[in-house]
């Protein structure tokens, strides 16, 4: 039975309280980290092969090292709790059931990067998780685990809990920072990168909720242990959000070596009603769709990549044989058109246009040029935008059409126009 790290407290009553968290060993990692050198903490996290679990899978320890050593400006640790990738819900569970693990991880990470100010940016729709987090923060302050002179260590760390107001683009690292600054969630042009010039112009590290929650375990049980749980490309376990046409949708914790097939058929009961798998998205809606013959891959940072997709947020969306792929693409295209921030031209103009074309195809008014137009426009825009949002849209645009082209063509043929 694989080890449970992130979900170890989920089944406990009042798992969100400080008392319960301490009962199961909470805040012992912090005590240990407070005796470590900041550089040593970062080194452990690097050796643990922890990769960002929000979507980009960037090596976390490496990211922490990007703050310029010579900088004397205040550094910020910002937690990306703006979970928004369709098909993903694991951060919601983590914040509602184990908020103190996030706080403990934050204080340790803050020590590693020399930060005394943390922000948690939580999406505005997550009202209940926000209330739970808020209570946990108050408990932590009352117990001297946050604020001045934490546990008598001489370290200060404050946390500001900040609610978003409804925009998927605020899950993009620098879009989040713009929103934190009280502006529209427009991603920032890079360079400079956040570690150099981030929130309010100061060096900033942005990490996902789940990523930071791995840190106390790495400190307590060592980098080698964590790395050994996973694969060569990524250490540890992680949470997979599985939804769609499975018998048992939900959060699954597994080592990153777990295969997509295992997730669907062993952990989630297989396709509902005994039907057949048609397609599955492995990493949230921005990941390219995979066909049934492509699911024997480890769900780590490299597995889905080997099939032209990505692990992203590990949001697994399962589609069975009843699904109309063109209609599914229309739904996804509508999402990207709605969430485009509008800042840069290729994304702003073509997400709306491509949605119109997919809708027209679904409504039976598709033209034979439309599919190649969508593919060509998507390819021309990929890699040209301020942020990776558009590349996330391109994932489904291209993969749904290329892998299920005949289904699209049938819709276009069935009502043929001149």
């Amino acid at each position, binding site marked *: 039975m694989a080890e449970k790290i992130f979900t170890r407290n989920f089944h406990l009553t009042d798992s969100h309280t400080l008392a319960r968290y301490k009962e199961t060993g909470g805040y012992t990692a912090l005590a240990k980290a407070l005796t470590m050198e900041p550089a040593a903490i970062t080194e452990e996290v690097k050796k643990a092969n922890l990769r960002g679990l929000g979507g980009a899978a960037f090596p976390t320890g490496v990211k922490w090292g990007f703050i310029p050593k010579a900088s004397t400006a205040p550094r910020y640790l910002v937690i990306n709790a703006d979970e928004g990738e*369709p098909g993903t819900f694991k951060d919601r569970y983590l914040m509602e059931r184990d908020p103190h693990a996030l706080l403990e991880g934050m204080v340790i990470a803050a020590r590693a990067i020399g930060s005394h100010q943390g922000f948690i940016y939580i999406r505005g729709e997550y009202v209940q998780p926000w209330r739970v987090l808020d209570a946990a923060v108050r408990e932590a302050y009352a117990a001297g685990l946050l604020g001045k002179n934490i546990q008598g260590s001489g370290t200060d760390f404050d946390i*500001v809990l900040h609610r978003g107001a409804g925009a998927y683009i605020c899950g993009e690292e620098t879009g989040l920072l713009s929103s934190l600054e009280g502006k529209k969630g427009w991603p920032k042009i890079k360079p400079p990168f956040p570690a150099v010039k981030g929130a*309010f112009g100061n060096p900033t590290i942005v990490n996902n909720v789940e990523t930071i929650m791995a840190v106390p375990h790495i400190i307590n049980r060592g980098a080698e242990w964590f790395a050994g749980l996973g694969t060569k490309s990524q250490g540890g376990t992680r949470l997979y959000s599985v*939804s*769609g046409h499975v018998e048992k949708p939900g959060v699954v914790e597994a080592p990153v070596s777990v295969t997509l097939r295992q997730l669907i058929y062993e952990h989630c009961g297989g396709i509902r009603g005994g039907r057949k798998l048609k397609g599955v998205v492995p990493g949230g809606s921005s990941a390219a769709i995979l066909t049934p013959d492509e699911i024997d891959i480890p769900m780590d940072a490299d597995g889905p990549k080997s099939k032209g997709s990505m692990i992203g947020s590990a949001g697994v969306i399962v589609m069975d044989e009843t699904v109309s792929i063109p209609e*599914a693409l229309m739904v996804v295209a509508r*999402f990207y058109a709605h969430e485009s921030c509008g800042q840069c031209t290729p994304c702003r103009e073509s997400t709306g246009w491509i949605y119109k074309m997919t809708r027209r195809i679904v409504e039976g008014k598709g033209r034979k040029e439309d599919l190649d137009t969508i593919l060509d426009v998507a390819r021309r825009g990929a890699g040209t935008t301020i942020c990776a949002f558009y590349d996330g849209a391109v994932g489904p645009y291209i993969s749904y059409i290329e892998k299920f082209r005949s289904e699209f063509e049938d819709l276009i043929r069935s009502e043929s126009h001149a």
Partner: protein
Amino acid sequence: MSDARNPEFTPEQLAEVRRLQGLYPDRRGALLPVLHLAQDTFGHISLEVEEYVAGLFGMHAAHVHEVVTFYTLFFQKPKGRHVVSVCHNISCYLMNAKGIIQHLGERLGVEPGETTPDGRITFLTVECLCACEQAPMMQVDDRYEGNLTNEKVDRILDGLR
């Protein structure tokens, strides 16, 4: 009488605004929290509320308007006593969100984006709320309601005054 037409925070609220502004290296960081406070207080964010808030931050009103029109949780027109937001994104779509939306539309007698004439419910379709394991689902005011069926929807609506 302070409302969206003549917005005015109480002294306690103004103290809270100042406290929030002090939490951020640049006080503008408190804009979203203060707009949430304003919406909770005045019901929605009218142009008068925008100008009032702009004054509290020393900002040009146009830039507050930019923020308010960008985010979906800020209502620029009066909303119903309850807000029912049904997800129509991919996982919920796979689990018959279309049917739930149609049913809600029939029960409420309004289209998505509209408020019932009696001011009880604003009915919206929204993008992913990240509760896909309970698809199809919707947000009713502050809470998530999932694993919806037409019957469950009816029961929930009946509980909304």
